[in-house]
């Protein structure tokens, strides 16, 4: 009976897979940017100004998990009218779907550094797997605040029409190149 009560008590505790140390994404040193072909003439670039997230990281055990939330209303292409249009139902439908999320599902390793991160990117309520290639990664104490910090540079691409963003395609490119640079600080 006592065992049963202990099991019942444990079942009520919040469960979380322990992967490694917990980190919090530093919004001040995180950049989510994109590039897309504009009518075959040039490459148009933009970024999101608001994002948050978390990282669990244990290079010794080769385990990592990352979750990033992006505020769709913070899109910034350096042109207010275009940003308003990108937030409308033609593209991000940001009022109805204010958050874009990336949640990792698996990581491949090259030595003790992550090489690729595959996860679900949820955009406009549609989740699709995306693989990001890690091009740079370093961990260590921040020389200014002495906090343990990890930084990652990653690239990938998505096909926007897979998420139902069909406006202007294919004139305005269907493939969106993503570039994500982020730092995360150990909790």
């Amino acid at each position: 009976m006592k065992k049963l009560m202990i099991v019942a008590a444990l079942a009520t505790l919040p469960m979380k897979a322990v992967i490694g140390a917990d980190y919090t994404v530093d919004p001040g040193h995180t950049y989510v940017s994109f590039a897309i072909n504009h009518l075959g003439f040039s490459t148009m670039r933009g970024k999101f100004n608001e994002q948050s997230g978390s990282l669990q990281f244990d290079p010794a055990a080769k385990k990592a998990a990352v979750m990033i939330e992006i505020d769709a209303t913070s899109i910034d292409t350096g042109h207010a009218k275009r940003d308003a249009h990108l937030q409308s139902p033609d593209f991000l439908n940001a009022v109805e779907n204010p958050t874009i999320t990336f949640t990792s599902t698996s990581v491949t390793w090259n030595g003790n550094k992550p090489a690729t991160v595959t996860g679900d990117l949820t955009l406009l309520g549609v989740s699709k797997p995306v693989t990001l290639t890690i091009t740079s990664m370093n961990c260590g104490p921040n020389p200014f605040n002495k906090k343990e910090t990890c930084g990652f540079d990653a690239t990938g691409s998505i096909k926007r029409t897979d998420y139902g963003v069909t406006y202007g395609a294919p004139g305005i490119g269907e493939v969106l190149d993503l570039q994500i640079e982020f730092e995360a600080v150990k909790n």
Partner: protein
Amino acid sequence: MEQLLARPEMQSAVVPFAVALLAYLVLRKVTATAWLWALLSAFLISAALINGLTISPLTGTRKIILLVIASLFTAALLHWVLSSHNLQRRFTTIICQVAILWVFWTVLGRMNSASMVLFLAGTISLVLMLEWLFVRVVDEPAQLHGAGFSLLLGVGLAATAAASALLGQLALALAAASGGAFLGWVLTGDAQGKQTRQPVAALPYVMAPALLGVAAVIFARLPWYALIPLAAIPLAVGLVPKKAESRFLRALLASLPGLAIALGVAFYIWQTGSSGSGY
């Protein structure tokens, strides 16, 4: 052909206009609600071309498409079930408000209480005003279609100028369908019977502009006050004398005031708002 049908002007103007005109001419001998079936067939085709046949994920825009289709069905069929004009009017008002709540439920949930009260007060006023004004002109086909066509055109152009081509295209497609059925009436006259003159016939002309107009305010950047002159279109159209001899003259007179308001609002939004193109 596929490339041709992918063009916005085909999806939102040529196709719905031609389908509605043809459907009206074919159905006018069959049913008194020929214009509603004409609008329904034209909007179904246009919505499929604009949005595709998918409804998942069920976004606010897709809910609007479903509701506009449902309102056209309901308007064409409900007069057989609900004969009381008072009940038809109450039904129109209540069902439009319920539709607005369903479409904007997720957004409402994130509003603070003051914004929510303003939203509800504004949308209830809009629906009541449109319902009352359209019922005043429902007896006269020239005024009903003149007001409906102009209002949808105004909402479509203003939504496009306020940075949503998708909402604009849907409103313009319905405006074009309305124009096609309207032309059918001008060329051939009334469909048989009197059923089209019941208040519930105004349901699509209340629901579609209300949903698309509010969506352009909430999801895009249409200033809320732009809806006031647009909602006054049926009022302006209702002031036009009904006694002109020819259907063509009645149609022309009933369309001009609404068109002037619609184009004026669209031009103002284009000049001051967040345009969806030109960058």
